[in-house]
């Protein structure tokens, strides 16, 4: 017992890196004669426990955050009855979901129906294992961490298909097939966009990428603004969040792949959506926003707290897009991936490769190259977006005279409408 007290009190201040707090425990275990393999297993279990409890807490908190923030954005109150500011609402929701009967379509193949929500939740949790929370605070320091993330996030889509197929419901199957079409399209811009980061950092290890940003004193979002935008749009499509949530569009296909789910099985889908959003926010915070490193700030505030702050900053942007943007149609969404994001990502990769080559060959100092690359890539980002909008975007018409799509169909021209005089009140002309 005294040992435990020493353990806590002796190191209570050293919360900068939680690995410092566990090291005495491992040293104690080693003194007790536990073998290295045993210590390895114990540390892995501790780390897993930490990740899972973080995920559980985040899922509970984010139900409240999401509903409350979206409510505020849409001029509603959001949940405000249970507890102060409605803080206890998620717990009430969870209790309600657990009590509900889990209905299962009689004609569904049972094991697929049951496994689908579990298989949908696991990748989101497993992604968090490779996120570095501090200088020594990473559960799985994988050399291929970035590929691991990509692989796992592509697994989640198969489980969505399982859910949609096993529900034996046409709306579920519609949702599932939309997800698959979307995945096949959006995988390419995601991979090609992240390639720029790998080229800069020279590694797929997430810790190495954070250390690269620390060494060169620049967030990756400054070096790679285009990759950030591409990744952000593509991943919000993969997450099925609102600008791109055609897989579960309530007004079109009654909730899509989870139409037939109820009770805690639906609860798992709901929680997994929040967990995936947080996992993706963590990836964006690590890859683009410096992870646990924030200029000199991480010497005063523990890195993992900074990372959590960044995660919630990114998560807020996700909630923001959900609260404000309308939903794409599926043809718009797929066209956006193939005609806009993929060519942009490929141009980005070529430019980055040239920059990295010049950087390595010339041997000039970082003080020249980092600002130069920031300038070039920002100009590239703005220029490409302006170019694509000028050339490829459908022209905006306040009063459309003919349908934009299906150009082969002859539509009688609409009667001429006199535009109201907006300029009168000093509004937009």
């Amino acid at each position, binding site marked *: 017992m005294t040992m435990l007290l020493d353990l806590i009190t002796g190191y209570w201040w050293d919360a900068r890196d939680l690995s410092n707090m566990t090291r005495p425990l491992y040293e104690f275990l080693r003194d007790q*004669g536990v*073998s*290295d*393999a045993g210590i390895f297993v114990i540390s892995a279990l501790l780390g897993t426990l930490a990740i899972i409890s973080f995920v559980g807490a985040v899922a509970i908190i984010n139900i409240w955050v999401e509903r409350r923030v979206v409510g505020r954005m849409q001029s509603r109150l959001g949940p405000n009855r249970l507890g102060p500011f409605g803080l206890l609402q998620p717990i009430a929701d969870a209790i309600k979901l657990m009590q509900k009967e889990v209905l299962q379509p009689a004609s569904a193949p049972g094991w697929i129906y049951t496994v689908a929500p579990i298989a949908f939740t696991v990748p989101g949790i497993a992604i968090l294992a490779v996120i570095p929370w501090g200088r020594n605070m990473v559960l799985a320091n994988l050399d291929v961490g970035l590929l691991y993330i990509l692989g796992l996030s592509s697994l989640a889509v198969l489980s969505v298909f399982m859910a949609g197929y096993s529900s034996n419901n046409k709306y579920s199957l519609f949702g599932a097939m939309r997800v698959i079409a979307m995945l096949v399209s959006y995988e390419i811009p995601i991979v090609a966009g992240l390639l720029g980061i790998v080229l800069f950092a020279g590694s797929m290890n997430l810790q190495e990428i954070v250390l690269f940003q620390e060494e060169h004193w620049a967030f990756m979002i400054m070096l790679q603004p285009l990759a950030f935008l591409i990744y952000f749009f593509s991943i919000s499509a993969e997450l099925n969040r609102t600008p791109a949530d055609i897989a579960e569009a309530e007004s079109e296909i009654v909730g899509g792949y989870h139409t037939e789910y109820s009770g805690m099985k639906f609860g798992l889908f709901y929680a997994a959506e929040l967990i995936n959003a947080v996992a993706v926010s963590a990836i964006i915070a690590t890859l683009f926003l410096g992870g646990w490193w924030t200029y000199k700030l991480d010497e005063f505030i523990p890195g993992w707290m900074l990372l959590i702050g960044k995660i919630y900053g990114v998560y807020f942007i996700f909630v923001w897009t959900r609260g404000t943007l309308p939903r794409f149609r599926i043809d718009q969404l797929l066209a956006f991936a193939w005609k806009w994001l993929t060519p942009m990502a490929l141009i980005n990769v070529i430019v980055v490769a040239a920059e990295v080559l010049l950087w390595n060959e010339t041997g000039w100092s970082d003080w020249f190259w980092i600002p130069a690359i920031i300038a070039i890539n920002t100009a590239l980002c703005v220029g490409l977006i302006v170019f694509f909008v000028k050339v490829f975007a459908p022209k905006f018409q306040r009063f459309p005279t003919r349908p934009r799509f299906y150009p082969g169909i002859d539509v009688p021209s609409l009667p001429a409408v006199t535009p109201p005089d907006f300029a009168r009140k000093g509004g937009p002309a």
Partner: protein
Amino acid sequence: MHSPVLTLVLHLEEVLIVGAALFAIGLYVALSKRNAIGILMGIELMLNAVNITFLGFARMSVSEDPIQGHVFAVFVITVAAAEAAVALALAVAIYKHRETVNIDQIDLLRW
């Protein structure tokens, strides 16, 4: 330090036998299934078995450059992806004409 009570050892032969078992299953699936997509599944299983064998050799056998096994495995995966895309496109194209993907009903070239 305590020495572990028992030491388990994995030999190259065991890896190769696992690969061989997977290959045999894949061969059976590829030879016996009626549906074209089922046959493709068997082929993918065989390619995976080959990859296990390659990586087992790369890990355990004597070689000047053991990364070669990994290089070959990556090429196998690449070719398998290309092959799956073309094969599935073929299945869909055949389906458009014949409303079936069962290979025993696709016999236009038989005689």
